[in-house]
């Protein structure tokens, strides 16, 4: 391991975070003991299928959990201070100023009856206390920053294409100079060419403004090209966490390996379909032990009974009974 001296203190630290949703008296755990750290300027992909808890994790960090959600354990710290993630009003000074969210459906997130320049200027007035003229000027700069000519600011959302609307969403997210941007499937509804343009823009903004990025997606290949690190979620837990290079070259968790194999990749020339058996788990009725064991080709007796610990291997972590770190690694991890 290279020394920890190069590792700056984390910007964001999530530890042991668990969130439950109550539904008709039944409570189901959406995320379970999620822990990770995010450094300034780092891009992390949060990958999982629907119901894996990736959006809940992100919404918890931004303090945007729905009213029927309850944080049942753990905490989120920003620059060393614990965030009041369950208290909407107390989160207000933090949200948009420190952590911003770019949502998936830009058409639904923008107000259809206001010109886009006004919508971008609004957070500058409300959160930064700028007078209208200054805020409008700032909104124009933000538009230019995301690649829209400032004179297009007079347009209404319906006059813009999907890609342009997503750019407006990014401009709004940047309005209060946050340090963290959470992208919740920001390119999922877009065509491939537009997706490439938006991902390129996010990458440029990230290095220009030293932004940390949490990219939520179900598409591993998007993460492969735009993130430094990737965390794979399954049934509310992070099952593997590592650098993009490590995870794609040598996935340790069987789920990660199967996910990678299920993406058609002409580059490796293998024209075969390898389905992952079974269906994604039902969170109300989560499988015992390792939640992936009913679908796992390598499952052992132990997997059905014991929840695997999330062990550290060098710079990556994996929660699988096939990979248990030796004592030395554990010592190194705590050092």
């Amino acid at each position: 391991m290279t020394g920890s001296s190069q590792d700056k203190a984390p910007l964001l630290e999530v530890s042991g975070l668990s969130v439950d949703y109550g539904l008709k008296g039944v409570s189901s755990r959406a995320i379970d003991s999620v822990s990770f750290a995010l450094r300034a300027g780092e891009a992390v992909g949060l990958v999982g299928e629907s119901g894996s808890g990736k959006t809940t994790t992100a919404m918890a960090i931004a303090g945007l959990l729905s009213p029927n959600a309850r944080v049942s354990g753990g905490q989120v710290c920003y620059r060393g201070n614990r965030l009041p993630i369950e208290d909407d009003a107390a989160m207000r000074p933090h949200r948009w100023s420190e952590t911003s969210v770019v949502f998936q459906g830009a058409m639904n997130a923008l107000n259809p009856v206001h010109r886009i320049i006004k919508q971008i200027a609004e957070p500058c007035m409300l959160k930064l206390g700028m007078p209208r003229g200054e805020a409008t000027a700032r909104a124009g700069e933000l538009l230019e920053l995301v690649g829209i000519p400032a004179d297009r600011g007079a347009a209404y959302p319906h006059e813009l294409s999907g890609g342009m609307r997503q750019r407006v969403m990014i401009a709004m997210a940047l309005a209060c100079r946050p340090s963290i941007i959470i992208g919740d499937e920001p390119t999922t509804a877009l065509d491939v060419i537009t997706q490439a343009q938006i991902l390129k823009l996010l990458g440029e903004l990230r290095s220009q403004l030293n932004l940390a990025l949490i990219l939520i997606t179900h598409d591993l290949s998007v993460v492969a090209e735009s993130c430094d690190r990737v965390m794979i979620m399954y049934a509310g837990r992070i099952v593997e966490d590592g650098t993009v290079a490590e995870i794609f070259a040598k996935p340790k968790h069987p789920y990660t390996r199967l996910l990678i194999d299920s993406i058609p990749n002409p580059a490796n020339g293998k024209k075969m379909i390898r389905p992952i058996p079974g269906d994604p788990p039902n969170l109300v009725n989560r499988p015992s032990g390792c939640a992936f064991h009913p679908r796992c080709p390598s499952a052992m007796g132990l997997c059905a009974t014991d929840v695997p610990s999330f062990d550290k291997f060098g710079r990556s972590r994996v929660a699988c009974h096939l990979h248990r770190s030796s004592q030395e690694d554990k010592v190194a991890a705590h050092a």
Partner: protein
Amino acid sequence: MPDNADILRLESLQVHFPIQGGMLDRVLGRPVRAVRAVDGIDLNVGRGEIVALVGESGSGKTTLGRVITKLAQPTGGRMLFEGRDMTSVQGSSALRPYRHRVQMIFQDAYQALNPRHTVFDIVAEPLRSLRLVENGTQLAERVSEALASAGLNPPGDFFSRFPHELSGGQRQRVVIAGALAVRPELIVADEPVSMLDVSIRAQILQVLVDLRDKHHMALLFITHDLPLAWLIADRIAVLYLGKLVEIGTADEITFNPRHPYTVALRNATPQIGGNAGRAESPALQGEVPSAARVPKGCRFHPRCPLAFDHCREEEPPPIEVGPQHLSACWLANDGRSRSS
């Protein structure tokens, strides 16, 4: 492949939707403009062949699928099914034999299934309405067969279930079973896996490939995902603004694209291990123009990094660049449109 083996043939097929002009336009006698959703497409699908139709939103791929399944009417060109001209056949009784042989799978299984019908009724519906069974025993047999082919086993367990009791993958299987029940010879599948989780996609693709392998069913697979098209299809047709810009075998289109748009699509597709083409050619600028204002000349020229004067004047015809490989680009044989 000899012509008589084609199950479906499209000749200069056209779907133009007229735009209702304003009063002023009518008074001044201005010509009625049209959205040229499908603007002259030649395509053939062989028996047991899987052809992928690849394009972005607005390329006309869904409209084309709807015309082939007779859910929309073409405004020009011809459509031949097993050599018979189906272009102007209309009306439910006249179309009954056709519907028996051509079926469609829709993208959104949540919307395609009636929430108040059981799985049995959903799959039995086409068999009943096309009067393909004589009695209840036969009906139950055919429904079981279709559910099993779509990978829902044992079929009896699903008969009385409602869509909301099924997972997303199971719902898409029910949609497929509904299409299969009539034992069609051609299935048009419009983005059948794009709403599904990655781990379920491969299962559904496997079902579709099995249908071709076991029942020699032809499949027109509509998608925006080039790697997915490569995985499943024998041939890939690339659509841009209502017209085919390139068609060829899946390997040729993926590894030796000869139209700048196909190259751009390929380079924009994120890949595990990085996309080698990305660094060499810049990302395409701008967006697909409106189909109501199709650019003059080559319709791709305003966005094409290689466009020259000729492209702005005259629309390139499909040019043969290899066996079974056509590209509608003036530079198709020039080498410049080729990727590295």
